[in-house]
């Protein structure tokens, strides 16, 4: 492999990993507080679509990114209310949010853009997307520091382990969980916005392609820590980049089969993570 190709591979790895890092950080903070966010995929789609719509309306992709964050946060808030105040089945509610967001984006494409399948092209961040990449890594470090070095980080982790004890200490676990899931949605929305107006300049149906679930696998593989999840996301980003590079360069490798590479990697990581990792004690348990 030539040096140029290696540089391309590494650059692509970081580029492909970034949306997964954002979503995986969201997944980590949510699960640390005790709520499993199966809706990450839908929240990414909402963020990706929201970013494209706001960009098309204002012509400014930065406004688009902010709209993407808000769109993701909105659906995070919906899941947060469902999971805390209504005490519903988190997995079922998250699945509903996935159906709702992905179907909703397809519906909104027709209503708002009058076309099916994909949006018209909009302005993109272009090379400015590098700032979002920097932000992803900065957020990973900041979130890690927050969770392990600050009193509120300790409280959040404690709520994921034993909410009753935290309540006894005078903190409302439900309020913290709701905030954590809303932030989780905002991060997933940011990841989606990176896909649509950072990497590309368009929203198309199915563009999130399971990245929300890959991010959930990254949370587990990364042992529910922000830095671990980031490393895992880089791993999956590497396989996505590798698939991209191998396509067309190696004639005997069928490109259809190569597309499965990141998903196969995620399944293997999921199986390999077991035994070494432990989820927060009250992860997924309503309080």
């Amino acid at each position, binding site marked *: 492999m030539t040096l140029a190709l290696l540089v391309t591979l590494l650059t692509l790895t970081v580029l492909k990993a970034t949306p997964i890092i954002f979503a995986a950080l969201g997944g980590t903070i949510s699960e640390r507080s005790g709520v499993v966010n199966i809706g990450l995929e839908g929240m990414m789609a909402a963020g990706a679509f929201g970013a494209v719509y706001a960009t098309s309306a204002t012509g400014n992709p930065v406004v688009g990114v902010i709209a993407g964050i808000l769109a993701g946060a909105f659906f995070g808030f919906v899941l947060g209310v469902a999971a805390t105040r*209504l005490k519903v089945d988190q997995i079922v509610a998250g699945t*509903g*949010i996935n159906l709702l967001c992905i*179907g*909703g984006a397809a519906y909104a494409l027709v*209503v708002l853009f009058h076309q099916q399948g994909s949006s018209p092209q909009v302005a993109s961040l272009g090379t400015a997307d590098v700032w979002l990449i920097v932000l992803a890594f900065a957020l990973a470090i900041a979130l890690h520091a927050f969770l392990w070095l600050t009193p509120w980080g300790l409280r959040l982790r404690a709520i994921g382990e034993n909410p009753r004890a935290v309540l006894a200490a005078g903190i409302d676990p439900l309020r913290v969980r709701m905030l954590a899931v809303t932030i989780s949605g905002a991060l997933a929305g940011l990841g989606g916005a990176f896909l649509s107006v950072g990497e590309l300049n368009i929203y198309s149906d199915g563009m999130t392609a399971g990245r929300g*679930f890959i991010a959930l696998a990254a949370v587990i593989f990364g042992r529910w820590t922000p830095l671990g999840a980031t490393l895992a996301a880089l791993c999956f980003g590497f396989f996505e980049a590798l698939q991209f590079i191998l396509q067309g360069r190696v004639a005997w490798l069928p490109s*259809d089969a190569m597309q499965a590479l990141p998903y196969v990697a995620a399944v293997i990581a999921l199986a390999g993570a077991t035994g070494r990792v432990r989820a927060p004690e009250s992860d997924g348990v309503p309080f």
Partner: protein
Amino acid sequence: MKSLMDRARGARGALGALAIALVLITAAMLVAGASPIDGFAALFAGALGGTHQLGETLVQATALLFPALGIALAFRAGLFNIGAEGQLLVGGLAAGALGANVHLAPALAAVIMLGGGALAGGVWGGIAGWLKARFGANEIIATLMLNFIAASLTGYLVAGPLKSSPAGGPETAPLAHAYWLPVLLPYTRLSIALLIALAIAALLHVVLTRTVFGYELRAIGEAPEAARRAGISLQRMALLALASSGAIAGLGGASIVAGELHRFNTQLSPGYGYTAIAVALVGDLDARWICVAAFAFGILETGGLAMQAVANIPKDAIHVIEGVIVVLLAARRYVAARAAIAS
């Protein structure tokens, strides 16, 4: 067993979801600038307005019923299988490949195609089951990942090794006419696949309520710790539950190939495996109610197309409503502790 109170609550929940769905459909029509009266007229005329329409509604209901029954089976065991889409695809591919290459008596060929489809779907679901049983891998993520792997794999196989002819599109060779499943309703696409699906529903109901296997399935879903102490192997049950769940979805894929498409192509499913999650939940994971729910969703799917054509309301509105219904139904209690099955 659920008490009468639980039943009543479940029915109220489903009716409430239906009422909200109707309000949302009306809202979606108003947003799209169409008259709700025209919209609903188009929806019901398109779904039930004649033999052809009814046949098509039942075709959609059948396609949703198989994966919904599979999902319900897994869910009753506390396992969330969101991989029905991939299991449908591999089941359809197996049926298409077998049907294009075997030369047997028609009845036997149909059995081989459907059996092969069920087997392939069972293996696909079983992979997630094995990962769960052996490594404690989260089945929600694993089954979803396997959907994308199935799409890539089937796409590769029909574009290459299993392609009908070098000049043809990405699909298997057409099935011989004799291999087609018999048509149930003349002049429609509705085949006896509907009867097979209803038979599976009856079988599932009996298995869940009258057999030891069904009892053990429900036990690991409702009280995993008690089940484990009673000597039920959670690992073995997880594997069996996900494999049989996948087999039912795979049979569904095979029935679409043998009954309607008469060959396999990658457009087999417009997302039946995902919509079927909503069908299973609306049907309260009860095989009898799932049949009713599948028919209702068949009306939405078929009528939605008509609504789009006549009243100019995007069909995707239906999927938004499905999502809202699922979020609302999450308030119901399905299983005790889903996360408990880990090695």
